[in-house]
């Protein structure tokens, strides 16, 4: 049994193609049924997000399955094969396992380490469970993928740093003020980015929000959404000393805040640090303010610098993550490739033979002096017992022809007898089965 993947992503296909092949949630049930009906496909799953559309299948004939999946992808969306195929990638066996583990761990994402993909994979797997298109192999495989994603998340710092400007502002604030609780944020002007950053700050526990705008009614409206207070633009500078974090994005061509305003505010607030974020272009705050001791002024480029540094950091962590993936691919592959009849029977026999030999030796040494004949009799008897016990299971395993049943029994035998070739220890979190 093998895994195959056919699909396309933001790396191989432009959005015009991606949107054409996307599977709507309503259509997934029917599509899963279609996939399951393909001759080479024993289990199937569909992942469809805005950045990728992928079909996963468990199969005994990877090549045939790949062809069928590709054809299905083109047919089901009415796209000519010539156009679609140049954007498609397909992986089989170990490569497919690696690909899915990387996707789930967010190593293949546009923003490496972003957390949404794990949820999307869980949803996709949920559909497959609900519509019974996932069987033993995909079940085990996806649980493996989820636990690997968790491992990557906890063992590397891949998702620890901010990669958007508005989050970068929050992250910086945490290096200035230890805790954001009991801090006051002021919004000057009403840029979209400002609002977003303010939302992050509020979510991170900032206690008070002040909003000012040339148009007072807009300030009032925005203040309402944050449960804050609107301040008159004419005299917002008088409130500066109460502000710990200031977000500015007015459309003003000149500086709205001069270094002198800020210097005065600093004195009033007894030199407690102030974090100023100037998102406006042209800038709102005199850059000279950064020279004041207790003021930390950041403009858009500076925040972009934080994001760049963090992305670089994520790339470094991604290397560690790849090592984890390598290990896990190996382990899963071992389990999968041993999920066939012969090795299982061989391992089972070996296991029981070992037990028999051990017990036989123990008995022989306990009984003391025995003649050759007696020894042989004991040996033959224990052999016969093992063979008799194994007779029926062996025959059953060999006779099973339904693939799904066979895998189930093989897996059960391996687990029950703790055969050394058995499944990777699976610490996957329990998932809702729909």
């Amino acid at each position, binding site marked *: 049994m093998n895994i195959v993947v056919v699909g396309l992503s933001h790396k191989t296909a432009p959005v015009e193609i991606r949107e054409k092949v996307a599977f709507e949630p309503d259509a997934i049930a029917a599509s899963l049924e279609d996939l399951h009906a393909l001759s080479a496909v024993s289990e199937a799953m569909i992942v469809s997000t805005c950045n990728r559309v992928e079909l996963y299948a468990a199969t005994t004939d990877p090549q045939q399955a790949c062809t069928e999946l590709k054809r299905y992808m083109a047919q089901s969306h009415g796209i000519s094969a010539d156009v679609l195929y140049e954007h498609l990638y397909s992986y089989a066996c170990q490569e497919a396992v690696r690909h899915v583990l990387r996707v789930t761990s967010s190593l293949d994402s546009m923003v490496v380490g972003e957390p949404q993909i794990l949820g999307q994979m869980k949803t996709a797997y949920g559909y497959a469970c609900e519509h019974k298109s996932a069987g033993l192999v995909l079940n085990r495989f996806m649980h493996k993928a989820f636990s690997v994603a968790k491992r990557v998340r906890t063992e590397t710092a891949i998702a620890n740093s901010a990669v958007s400007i508005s989050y970068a502002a929050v992250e910086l604030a945490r*290096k*200035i003020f230890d805790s954001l609780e009991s801090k006051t944020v002021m919004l000057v002007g009403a840029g979209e980015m400002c609002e977003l950053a303010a939302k992050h700050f509020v979510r991170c526990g900032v206690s008070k929000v002040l909003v000012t705008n040339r148009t007072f009614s807009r300030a009032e409206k925005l203040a309402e959404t944050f449960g804050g207070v609107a301040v008159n633009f004419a005299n917002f500078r008088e409130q500066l000393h109460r502000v710990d974090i200031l977000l500015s994005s007015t459309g003003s061509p000149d500086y709205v805040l001069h270094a002198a305003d800020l210097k005065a505010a600093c004195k009033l607030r*007894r*030199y407690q*640090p102030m974090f100023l974020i100037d998102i406006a272009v042209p800038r709102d705050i005199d850059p000279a303010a950064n020279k004041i001791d*207790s003021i930390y002024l*950041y403009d858009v480029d500076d925040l972009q610098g934080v994001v760049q540094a963090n992305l670089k950091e994520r790339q470094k962590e991604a290397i560690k993550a790849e090592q984890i993936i390598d290990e896990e691919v190996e382990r899963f592959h071992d389990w999968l490739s041993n999920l066939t009849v012969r090795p299982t029977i061989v391992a089972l026999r070996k296991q029981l033979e070992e037990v028999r030999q051990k017990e036989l030796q123990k008995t022989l040494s306990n009984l003391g002096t025995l003649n050759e004949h007696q020894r042989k009799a004991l040996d033959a008897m224990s052999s016969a017992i093992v063979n008799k016990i194994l007779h029926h299971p062996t025959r059953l395993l060999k006779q099973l022809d339904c693939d799904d049943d066979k895998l189930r029994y093989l897996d059960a035998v391996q687990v029950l007898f703790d055969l050394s070739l058995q499944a990777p220890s699976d610490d996957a979190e329990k998932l809702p089965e729909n």
Partner: protein
Amino acid sequence: MVPVNLLFAATTLTYLVASLLYLTAMIGKREEAGRLGRWVLLLGIVLHAAVFAVRHSMVEGTPVTSLHESLSFFAWCLVLLFLLLDLRFRLSVMGAFAAPSALCLMIFSALSPDVVVPLSPVLRTWLFPVHISFAFLGNAAFALAFGAGVMYLIQDRMLKSKRFNRIYRMLPSIDVLDRVNYTCLSVGFPFMTLGIISGAVWANMAWGSYWSWDPKETWALITWFLYAGLLHGRLTSGWRGRRAAFFSIVAFMFLLFTFLGVSLFFDGYHTFEAFSMP
């Protein structure tokens, strides 16, 4: 009885292990290493106390007279105060400063001549241990303030110049570093004050005069004024952040000179015993 050298070596070893753990915690961002480091330091401080207990029975008095013993006692006070500070702040970066500092003090201590000298009569008073305990606890607190101050300046530099490198990631917020700096100063200052007062009382009992402008006294007074000025600035004029951090570093330089320089370069009551031996 366990030989004192063995105990000393074991203590040094625990400080080494704790240093490595705290550095791992800071550089590798592994908080659990920091938690382990705390327990190792706790073990170290107990072993270290045993060193002093044994020495105490050897000289039948307070065993802090030579440079060897002074440095070792300094290390003990430093670790003790760090562990207390840690109860409140839980900063493994401070551990990454305190534990290696203690380790260095132990190494310098081991390198200084270790001569067990019977206590001279003037040191056989209950005021001696009181005096040195206050003085060294003050030193240790100021050392921690110094560490926090250095880290503050570095992190402040990173934030101002917008460099988001490894060091920026390792260090905590400037706010917390400033609070640590302040806490250490406000703990160290009363200790230092009591150290000076107890010294004066003792001087009066031994020589009939509270103050005789012995070099150590003079320098200690200068240092005391520096710290008093710094605390005053923090409390009344809102000194904080960069200025306070910088000041606490300078003041600590004076303190180091008072502690080591004066005893090594000048003659006076505070000359280490081992050096005054013929």
